[in-house]
């Protein structure tokens, strides 16, 4: 998603720019900006430019975490097996 172009002529403040960020980053756009008013602000504001870059970076880096890093203890499988043994319906062929 990209934000609709605004018709305003006065430059955006940082607060106004940052209020638009949640929508800017929603719906898979990940901070891709086309609105000239927003681009104008970014071209002159190093603080907001760094913020956008960092938010894009964090969203990108988050995908690293999809790969699991933690392993449950062996007790978990033991308890599952005990439950399976205690309830024969788990091991019966499913009718669906």
């Amino acid at each position, binding site marked *: 998603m990209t934000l609709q172009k605004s018709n305003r002529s006065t430059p955006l*403040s*940082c*607060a106004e720019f*940052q209020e638009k*960020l*949640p*929508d800017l*980053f*929603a*719906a898979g756009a990940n901070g891709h900006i086309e609105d000239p008013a927003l681009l104008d602000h970014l071209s002159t504001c*190093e*603080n907001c430019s*760094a*913020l956008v*870059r*960092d*938010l*894009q*970076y*964090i*969203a990108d*880096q*988050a*995908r*690293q*975490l*999809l790969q*699991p*890093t*933690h*392993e*449950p*203890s062996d*007790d*978990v*499988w033991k*308890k*599952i097996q005990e*439950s*399976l043994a205690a309830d024969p*319906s*788990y*091991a*019966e*062929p*499913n*009718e*669906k």
Partner: protein
Amino acid sequence: MDVQGQQMTEPKTAPGLFKRNPPIAGEAEAIERAKAGDAEAFSKLYALHKRRVYTLCLRMLGNVSEAEDMTQEAFLHLFRKIGSFRGESAFSTWLHRLTVNLVLMHLRKKGLQLVSLEETINPSEEDSPKRDFGSRDTQLAGSVDRVALERAVASLPPGYRMVFVLHDVEGFEHNEIAVMLECSTGNSKSQLHKARLKLRELLRQAESTPQDNLKEAAL
């Protein structure tokens, strides 16, 4: 299975879900055998998915004991309901949705049942990311490794962490998260944005703070 009013059906296949959760070698055969009640197939499916399910539980709950209990619950539900899996979505997507619903139900049972998550997932003002319009920031990009990010995510307030893990890590859409958390789509977007802002704050603090103190820095 009906988890907190949500039928445990397969999610509609969203673009990229199979790409994000590609089929695993031997998985399809194990699923079919498990549907027929083959205990060894259950063991195989557990071995294939235990780490991702447990990691998901741990990230959502932040507690080893509870995460192990919910991992056990998730696989028991899986084994009971595997016959309803029709292969319309990636198996891991189906399993993760089941797990998320169980964890959320668990959290509601712990004390959130009378108050909607719409309200309770909003952290206090103290936890909210600081707004900082004036200062010149150093750039974060390129400086964060996986361990640092993992630590920062663990330090997030629970509501932020939940939305961040579901959207940015697990790949659920805002409309799906809104249904799962019983909040509005706008609320999910807003929480995600605040979560990323808070993460940025935590990661920047971590660059100048010893790692062991990251949790303290989050308070």
